[in-house]
């Protein structure tokens, strides 16, 4: 199933039809903590994104739905490991979006 989906994406790119990628969706789980939980008014949501979306794309998507995260310096983790904004997300990933940590 998954291999088949990847093959379609490659064909789309080769033929210059990058727009077709947006038809292939995936779902990721997004967790918020502290300041981002207050901004999102949620601790956890599920969101549908175009296949091959990055963590930065996720923030664009959330901002489009009025979750005011752009005011914050944000860090990401994907599946409980720190990840840069350019990280490509996969179906069922656990993505956390949070501000610089302040424990201790």
């Amino acid at each position: 199933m998954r291999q088949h989906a990847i093959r379609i994406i490659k064909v789309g790119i080769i033929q210059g039809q990058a727009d077709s990628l947006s038809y292939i969706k995936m779902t990721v789980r997004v967790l918020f903590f502290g300041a981002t939980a207050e901004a999102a008014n949620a601790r956890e949501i599920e969101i549908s994104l175009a296949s091959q979306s990055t963590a930065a794309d996720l923030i664009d998507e959330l901002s489009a739905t009025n979750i005011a995260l752009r005011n914050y310096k944000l860090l990401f983790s994907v599946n409980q490991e720190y990840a840069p904004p350019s990280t490509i997300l996969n179906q069922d990933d656990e993505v956390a979006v949070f501000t610089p940590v302040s424990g201790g």
Partner: protein
Amino acid sequence: MDFAESTFEPIDVGSVARKIVPPECGATVTLDGYVRRFTKGRETLHLVYEAYEPMALKEMAKLAERAKSQFEIANVGIVHRLGKLEIGETSVVISVAAPHRKAAFEACEWIIRELKRTVPIWKKEIYADGETWASGEEPDTNISNSKS
């Protein structure tokens, strides 16, 4: 044995050190971090700590491993309190056992510095006249979001 824990109950500071002391060691350094009443002249009423617990425990265990590779130490114990804390209550305990004290002091200082930078725990300060999520240190550029 190393250990890393989070807890919503008060921390028994002495028990952290006792868990990590092996017979071949000569010194254990323990940091007892607790809630300060005044920060930059402003009075704190209480604090609330929130964690991304599974990742926080993983990051604390990583710190113990990294400390052991960098310093001549034997064992590390880290416990972080979560939830509401009153003034003077212990928020974090780091105990480092080592054959000699110098390495234990250095490792303990290194671990608390890294913990404040990398372990996903956040502190909300509640003042008489408002509340705010404490801003953490600037992250490494490779994990910051350049768009925001």
